[in-house]
């Protein structure tokens, strides 16, 4: 992926990011409704729904990375730094909570929240590093 300039990179980012998020919401809301409405038993179907809900997020993460590679160097630095810092924060949290669970200091809990946690820390760090420039 080569640098194509800030404006075009931003256009390409939003062109794929928002539809991906819309698909994600439809799958999450629709899937949850479907699961509650009908008692779905086959494991493969539940697994399929889980994978289907994850796919738009994989695309969103790839779009974020593509934007960082394609935008101008100043915005690329903000994006790369915030992705690296949020990655380190979330990996540290995973290690800490994982060990606390391993030594029975914490009850088992869902790992689902690490994904949104990464997105949230990435957003916050982008704001801290770039201020209004990250928008």
């Amino acid at each position, binding site marked *: 992926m080569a640098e194509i*300039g*800030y*404006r075009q990179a931003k256009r390409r980012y939003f062109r794929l990011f928002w539809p991906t998020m819309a698909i994600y919401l439809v799958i999450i809301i629709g899937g949850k409704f479907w699961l509650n409405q009908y008692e779905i038993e086959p494991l493969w179907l539940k697994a399929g729904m889980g994978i289907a809900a994850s796919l738009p997020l994989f695309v969103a993460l790839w779009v974020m990375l593509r934007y960082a590679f394609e*935008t*101008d*160097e*100043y*915005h690329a*630095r903000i994006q790369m730094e915030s992705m690296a810092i949020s990655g380190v924060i979330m990996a540290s949290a995973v290690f800490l909570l994982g060990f606390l669970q391993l030594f029975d200091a914490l009850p088992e809990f869902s790992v689902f929240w690490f994904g949104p946690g990464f997105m949230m820390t990435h957003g916050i760090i982008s704001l801290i590093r770039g201020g*209004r*420039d990250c928008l």
Partner: protein
Amino acid sequence: MKNILRQLRAEQGWSQATLADMLGVSRQSVNAIETGKYDPSLPLAFAIARIFNRSIEDIFEDETATELKAAE
């Protein structure tokens, strides 16, 4: 890194957006360079120098070199 980019741009009567378009970067990037918030890469520094027909050293001040000279 200190620089005289804002001054050079003002002399030409260009807005940050105009210069940004000429350099192929965002207006925010030009602002970040002017305010010293961001040091450009060597290719971007060369592009800036080319636009103003100056050398990189004319536009950007090597603060370490200045400090070393002052210490001598």
